[in-house]
């Protein structure tokens, strides 16, 4: 049975995702990320332009399925999907793009960890330092500030840089690539 050897000598499904299907996988991952951003932008539009009350400003999907937006499970699930995407797809990146992608991955590890902490607090009813609501670690030094959208920005920026570098590789980076993401080199 033929198996595809991908980045780093890996074989199987992960290798295929980092080789033959890397472009499609990264594109799908980007759609998920941008979809999340779109929901937040719609929510911002509802609050600041349409003047809707904040509890009713639940984005586009949340407008029809409210529990999706009001549940910490949703936030945690998204953070987990993001983390899995970063971990699985990192092998296809080389050189500079690999550096930026891994940086984004480690920021997402922290972001995911913060969401896990929020989820555990919500499930146990024991809040950090006796606060009246679930509290993230960063709130210890920046009280009353919800920074998870900020986290999304911080993860998104190096991710986009990594993708741009991946699409425009240097010759030595292109030589190490096993995927077809990069634009072909013009001949002649």
């Amino acid at each position, binding site marked *: 049975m033929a198996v595809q050897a991908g980045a780093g000598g890996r074989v199987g499904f992960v290798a295929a995702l980092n080789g033959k299907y890397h472009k499609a996988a990264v594109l799908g991952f980007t759609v998920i990320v941008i979809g999340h951003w779109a929901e937040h932008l719609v929510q911002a539009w509802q*609050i600041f332009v349409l003047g809707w009350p904040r509890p009713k400003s639940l984005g586009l999907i949340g407008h029809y399925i409210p529990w999706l937006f009001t549940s910490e499970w949703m936030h945690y699930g998204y953070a987990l999907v993001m983390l899995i995407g970063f971990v699985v797809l990192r092998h296809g990146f080389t050189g500079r793009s690999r550096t930026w992608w891994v940086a984004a991955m*480690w920021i997402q590890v922290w972001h995911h960890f913060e969401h896990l902490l929020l989820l555990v607090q919500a499930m146990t009813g024991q809040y950090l330092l006796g606060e009246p609501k679930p509290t993230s670690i960063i709130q210890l030094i920046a009280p009353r500030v919800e920074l998870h959208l900020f986290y999304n920005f911080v993860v998104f920026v190096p991710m986009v840089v990594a993708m741009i570098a991946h699409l425009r590789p240097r010759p030595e980076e292109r030589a190490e690539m096993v995927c077809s993401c990069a634009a072909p080199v013009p001949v002649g």
Partner: protein
Amino acid sequence: MRRGVGRSSGRPTPITPISPGPRLTGQPTATLGTTATTKPLHTHAVRTIAVLAATVLFLVACAGRAVAQHEHTLSVPVSFGPLALRIALLYAVPAVAGFALLRGFLDRPSRMTVAFVCGSAALGVLLDLMLAGRVEVSNQVVFLAVVAGCFPVFLTLAPVAAPLAEPARRAAPVVLAAASAGAIFHFAKAWTGAGSPATLHSGVILALAGLAWLPLVGCRRRAARLTVHAGSAVVATALLAAAAQATVAGGF
């Protein structure tokens, strides 16, 4: 050869310096008979700093809207109560304290051992913060304790943190000593009747944050090793007693 962060109690291991490579040093790079000169390091650094600064400014400018917009409504239809946290703490504290008590009699810990002990310490810090209700130290000190507790885990598990291993190994005794001094101060204050349950919890958090760095410590001199191992054993014993008292006394 086993991979580990610390150093054996009796046999120091030589440290191989990490070469930054021609790209970082800005030296010319020879490639197949041709010589290509990379950009100077300072130009690259200035550009990187400028991009980072611009990014930070952009993010700070967006933060106000982000704060106003993104509310977490925690409607989780499952509740475990604090029992699971208490059980987890009762695993984490003995794991860290046991390692500290036995460290002087053990060989160099493996990477997995280091990750397990550091992870247990970091977990213990967070669990105690959730169970404590309130502590006596400021939030900034708590934040530092959390970061100090989590950093060794990152250092052990993340390959990208390899360049930080040597500086961390040098800093480990200092962090351990500072956190231990703070912990002993709070334990003494609580046990002499001058404190409250919050004082005890502060000591537990600081002791766990300090002991998270113990697996990273690698002292060359015998006297220094003896001091670190004996001091850690004392802090570990006090940590066990304090965690037990806080549990039994209903401080949680």
